[in-house]
């Protein structure tokens, strides 16, 4: 069985300042259901169906994307802190000037011909996925009263079972826009919010030309590691 989450560590459904939430989040309370085999299983070999795509979004030489080179080291773990080997992780973000390469993005910021902005990674035995990319820019949200999205990276992650599925966003430390972001601040508990912000780590190890960020994603589920009685 998966334990229920503390609502304070999650976002409200309807969020002030984000008009679409009031059109889309159900008005009726969510129904509590028993957990059965159906919710507590999942595709164990998802990576066979959704394989890795593009492990490097920054490129090299003449094909190098514009912007600050960064390296994001993400660990996918469960509630016991045990790594989730084979976890599939989808990542996407905008370019250094704040523009997504997506038909829905009508922002005036320019596209970068050397930046595509989407990757799919598969975690190794330690639950680790690494992505070399450039730091995304901030951008204004259309039809709002001055809401700017801080630099952020989208993550879509599969854990061990159907109920472990997680879609979230990673933020960067020290960004003034983090304080006012409607999405980040919809998570009520300040500690839970802080865990959505990556840690800038010294680069004594690893790539010397990129800013290293560490980030941990905790998916629902536990008990995959042997546990002692009592």
């Amino acid at each position, binding site marked *: 069985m998966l334990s229920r989450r503390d609502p304070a560590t999650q976002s409200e459904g309807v969020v002030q300042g984000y008009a679409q939430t009031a059109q889309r989040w159900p008005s009726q309370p969510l129904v509590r259901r028993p957990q059965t085999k159906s919710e507590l299983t999942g595709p164990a070999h998802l990576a066979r169906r959704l394989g890795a795509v593009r492990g490097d979004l920054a490129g090299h030489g003449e094909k190098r994307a514009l912007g600050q080179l960064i390296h994001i080291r993400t660990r996918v773990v469960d509630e*016991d802190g045990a790594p989730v080997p084979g976890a599939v992780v*989808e990542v996407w973000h905008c370019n250094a000037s704040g523009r997504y390469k997506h038909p829905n993005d009508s922002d005036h910021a320019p596209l970068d011909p050397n930046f595509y902005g989407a990757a799919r990674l598969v975690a190794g035995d330690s639950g680790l996925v690494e992505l070399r990319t450039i730091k995304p820019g901030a951008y204004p949200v259309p039809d709002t009263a001055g809401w700017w999205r801080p630099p952020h990276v989208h993550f879509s992650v599969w854990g061990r079972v159907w109920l472990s599925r997680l*879609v979230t966003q990673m933020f960067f430390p020290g960004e003034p826009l983090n304080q006012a972001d409607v999405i980040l601040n919809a998570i009520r508990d300040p500690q839970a919010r802080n865990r959505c912000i990556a840690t800038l780590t010294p680069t004594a190890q690893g790539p010397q030309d990129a800013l290293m960020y560490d980030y941990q994603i905790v998916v629902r589920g536990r008990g995959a590691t042997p546990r002692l009685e009592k």
Partner: protein
Amino acid sequence: MSAMSLIPTGEMTLGPFFPREFAQGANDLAMGTEQGEVIEITGRITQLDGRPLDNLVVEIWQADSQGRFDSGEFFGWGRAATDANGVYRFRTIKPGACEGRAPHINFLLLYSGLMRHLQTVMFFEAAKDPVLDAVPAERRQQLIARREGAAYRFDIRLRGDGETPFFDD
């Protein structure tokens, strides 16, 4: 006792810019499997004002025709995105009953404006089932698909009149 207890990361919205390539190419679960009755599942997804939602991501998880999950003979997981008319489509096989559960398909919705993903379940008929029974009686009909030829139609209303029941786990 476990040495560590971590709190699951907070969910956040998919946003409007989920790469289209990720949502495509995974909505045929019947391909390559020998077993079961091949069916199509389709439906329209709308919001409070009735507007159909474009490029909403739908993921499903289901048992094989024998009621087995992750059996090796059938993958059981798929993903689709709605089109400009709010319509999604899956081709799959009809799942069997499993350990006290009536045949059903788990649905998960991801979209801009959904701060957390939404979970619902499609059933093929009114039947005794612990998850269906958890839903107030007057709302259960919303979770039962309508047969239309070889297809099952399962419309999803996020909010408003005829709102689909969603689950909290």
